[in-house]
């Protein structure tokens, strides 16, 4: 249950939703993804209400990575990445080579290209999360067949079924925001995989031009990774803004209801300050 939440997610930001368990983080994520409709108020994406869009349109712009994925049957990593292309295809359409490229590129960006033919159940925890993130990236890929451009990279354009020719004269298209939502992305992983996945997540806004929102209860993770933070307590926003401003001792104490004793312990555990 969350109440009276109003927040903005700037483009290209890496926003963390921080709060204790039960504070409503998952609910907030679901609202952003459009899988939950608010009882009052609305969710806007690019200035448009989510509720006005069809499921497929929303899915092309918002992808969710859950904390854990349990498969009923054993699919390969490539098949799972390809599933991200679902909202881009019609009811009986089969994935085109462009879609396959998109999935492979996504796997490559998450460092799992070499696992394409491996069964998902055989992967490690970290590999599984990265494959699911790849699936989400494939889902958000509006122009399949092109490698994502990072500034400074040599741009390689792979032509498959279509080409995109950048032209200075062409009017710039209406900006399409894409959002990746991750629910406690490292909560069930070993430390080694936590670091692996965290590194990957940090690169996403820059490399792919997508906004990232993740929920977590891990202070250090939030502080290290995010550019913006939203502190959520019992369904209400306690504070929001850039990390440095929000993540103060006082705020954390209020969020987690820590007394002076606990604060002292926390200080010594995490070093001076937060």
């Amino acid at each position, binding site marked *: 249950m969350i109440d009276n939440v109003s927040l903005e997610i700037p483009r290209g930001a890496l926003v963390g939703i921080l709060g204790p368990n039960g504070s409503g983080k998952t609910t907030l994520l679901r609202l952003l993804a459009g*899988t939950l409709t608010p009882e009052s108020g609305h969710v806007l994406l690019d200035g448009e209400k989510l509720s006005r869009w069809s499921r497929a349109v929303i899915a092309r712009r918002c992808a*969710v990575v859950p904390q854990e994925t349990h*498969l*009923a*049957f054993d699919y390969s990593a*490539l*098949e799972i990445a390809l599933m991200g292309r679902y909202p881009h295809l019609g009811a009986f359409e089969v*994935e085109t080579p462009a879609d396959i490229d998109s999935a492979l590129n996504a796997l490559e960006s998450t460092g799992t290209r070499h696992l*394409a033919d491996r069964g998902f159940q055989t992967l490690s925890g970290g590999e599984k999360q990265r494959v699911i993130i790849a699936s989400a990236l494939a889902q958000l890929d509006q122009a399949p067949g092109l490698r994502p451009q990072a500034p400074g990279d040599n741009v390689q354009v792979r032509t498959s079924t279509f080409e995109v020719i950048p032209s200075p004269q062409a009017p710039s298209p209406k900006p399409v925001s894409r959002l990746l939502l991750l629910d406690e992305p490292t909560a069930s992983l070993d430390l080694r995989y936590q670091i692996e996945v965290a590194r990957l997540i940090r690169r996403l806004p820059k490399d792919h031009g997508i906004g990232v929102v993740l929920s977590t209860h891990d202070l250090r993770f939030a502080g290290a990774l995010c550019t913006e933070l939203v502190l959520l307590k019992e369904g209400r926003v306690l504070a929001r803004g850039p990390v440095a401003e929000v993540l103060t001792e006082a705020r954390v104490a209020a969020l987690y209801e820590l007394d002076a004793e606990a604060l002292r312990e926390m200080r010594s555990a995490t070093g001076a300050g937060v």
Partner: protein
Amino acid sequence: MDVPHPLRRASPVIAFCFLAMVTAVLGAPFVGTTSISFVKVFSNAIASPDNLDRQIFLIARLPRAVAAALVGGCLSAAGVVFQGLLRNPLATPYTLGVSAGAALGAMVAITFGAATPVVGVASASLAGAALAVGVVYALASARRSGFSTTVLLLAGVTLNAFFSALILFVQYLSNFAQVYRAMRWLMGDLDVGSYSPIVAALPFIAVAFVAFAWLARPLNLLSLGAEAAESRGVDVERAQRLAFFSASLATGAAVSIGGPIGFIGIIVPHLVRLLVGADHRAVLPASTFLGAAFLVICDIIARTAIAPMELPVGVITALIGGPFFLWLLVRRR
């Protein structure tokens, strides 16, 4: 580097299964305890009513082979869809109460049918199946939070138990011959003798398979979990309801033709997944074709093993399916 679509690898297997089905259906009518000759069946020299070979071929065996293929295909495909819906490879077409309802309908028709000769056993079993499906669906949809597969499963299991008790009660009221007939119906019987039960079931089967074709991709995504599928744009509730109804329809149609034949809905999908992977767009057609071929072969065994007596085909599928299943379980560890 061009990577081929993962489904490409499955195509030869699907083609093989299709070939197996066609061969089985065309070949089965020539196999049996009474040997008939290919030449005589198609020769026009002997007048049709006198041509015993042709009569056996056309009246006794060909409809039987077609029925076996249809029932085998339906039960296998329904098994695949139920497993996708319940996200559990151990689900069968009978998990959710359809067959208990069909069995109850058939029992009632056999025991009390003398009073109302109009209602045949097949239509009574369809009515029973529809009743069971209706009750289970109503229970699963009655929640404010929408359609729940957990409630579906619980309702189905409960209904199975309840209807089984009712079946025992009806059998208690029957006389000897009725009890025996009822038991034989429960073991499966593909001796249709004519095309009417097949033709009657065909519209339901057609509708079910159209739904299956549409469901193939959503079922893939449902494997990731309902939330994950929802966030990828799948209308999860619609897919679940459609899966439940179409698979129940196919199962009900199959049971009305040949009785509740077991093990096909679980052996064939498992086998197929070992061969083509988990993509439902390959698993569904391959299971349908392989299931059809499999049941035709089981039926051949059933009618030739202890001639002139016939073994119920359900016994054959159980004798093959049981050990296969045990092997699967052992292998998984």
